[in-house]
């Protein structure tokens, strides 16, 4: 049984841990609000963009001359998995859930005889996948210096991916990120970005494309917009990820704070009991000493 002094130090150390986790929770809550706002601000752009792309894709998509980004390369032999995770840990299962999904997908593809390449965005995903997929890494994007995710960051990632695509390094690209539902729920998601699939009311798309004039031509616009589409999808995924990360960290730290509280209670009871035991012991000693005389 630990002595009184040990217990006291233990209690003090758990208390300071609780302070830290509490502070981290509050920081995450503040950041979460900002991340959510950023995600909401980007939504109108993404929505309209996808609507226009759906229209264009519906009218041009079927033709032979459609850009490769839309049509695909005609094969699906090599897959690029873009795994987007956080730069920091201490956010519950956030990073490992994304990594797990990516690992599953990679295993499936490999079982089907496909080649898998992995591009990681965010340090934690890289660390998590290094052991299983380390040999398949083709690159890493470091966002640890970025305080606030901007469109420029997404463009950087998109450019990296597009350069590889133009060089014929892969046929299909899929991004992995966590979709933000609420503070306690983040769903790891896989989304194919190349070849692009724009869904959204097929009927609407057809009628929309019929009435629009395009300047310059439809195909030029499509060729111009598809790379932007990749960037836009990555941007919204990064923002979702940002919000999810803060949400996951917030609930993880909330749990940690509560656990620390429980532990302090338990240790305090133990401390008081052993203090009482020591006192009782001393009294017994005194009394039996007095009786012996």
């Amino acid at each position: 049984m630990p002595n009184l002094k040990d217990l006291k130090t233990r209690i003090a150390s758990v208390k300071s841990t609780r302070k830290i986790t509490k502070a981290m929770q509050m920081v995450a809550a503040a950041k979460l609000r900002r991340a959510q706002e950023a995600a909401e601000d980007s939504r109108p752009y993404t929505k309209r963009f996808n609507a226009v792309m759906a229209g264009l894709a519906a009218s041009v998509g079927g033709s032979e001359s459609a850009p490769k980004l839309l049509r695909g390369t005609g094969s699906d032999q090599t897959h690029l998995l873009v795994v987007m995770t956080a730069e920091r840990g201490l956010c519950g299962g956030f990073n490992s859930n994304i990594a797990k999904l990516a690992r599953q997908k990679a295993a499936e593809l490999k079982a089907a005889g496909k080649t898998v390449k992995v591009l990681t965005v965010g340090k934690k995903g890289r660390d998590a996948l290094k052991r299983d997929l380390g040999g398949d890494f083709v690159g890493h994007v470091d966002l640890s210096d970025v305080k606030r995710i901007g469109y420029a960051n997404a463009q950087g990632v998109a450019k990296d991916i597009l350069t590889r695509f133009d060089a014929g390094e892969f046929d299909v690209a899929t991004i992995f990120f966590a979709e933000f539902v609420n503070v306690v729920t983040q769903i790891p998601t896989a989304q194919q970005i190349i070849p692009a699939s724009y869904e959204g009311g097929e009927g609407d798309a057809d009628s929309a494309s019929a009435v629009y004039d395009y300047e310059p031509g439809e195909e030029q616009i499509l060729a111009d917009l598809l790379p932007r589409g990749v960037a836009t999808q990555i941007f919204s995924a990064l923002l979702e990820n940002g919000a999810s990360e803060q949400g996951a960290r917030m609930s993880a730290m909330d749990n940690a704070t509560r656990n620390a509280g429980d532990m302090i209670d338990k240790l305090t009871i133990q401390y008081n009991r052993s203090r009482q035991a020591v006192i009782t012991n001393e009294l017994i000693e005194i009394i039996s000493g007095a009786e012996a005389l």
Partner: protein
Amino acid sequence: MAQTMQFDLVSPERSLASLQASAVQIPGAEGDMTAMPAHAPTITTLRPGVLKVESPEGNAEYVVTGGFAEIGGDSLSVLAERAIPMAEMTRDQMNTLIEDAREMYKTAKEEDQPHGLVEDAAKLLADMEALGTHMSL
């Protein structure tokens, strides 16, 4: 001019404007065009330039770089990659934009990229510089 249309200017990072406008001058890829209510439905890509909005409440100007505009009968949405209100624009920001364009042109030329990217970058640079002069900052 009583008639107005719904005008939205959005960038990936935020929505900049959403108002009733009577006329909007758009820097289209193939030349400027002015959209007014009941314009034929058109989708055009943008070149870097100045977007001028006329509305009953007053006029506004925005510097936009890249993106596209969707003109419907009674609505106009401009999706710009970067959009900055003219009032907030400074020489420094302009210089950064020009510098970015120049950098892009240089790397495009060095790497000898396909798809006419070199010409695109050159045009972008020229557009940017013209924009800078036009604004006479």
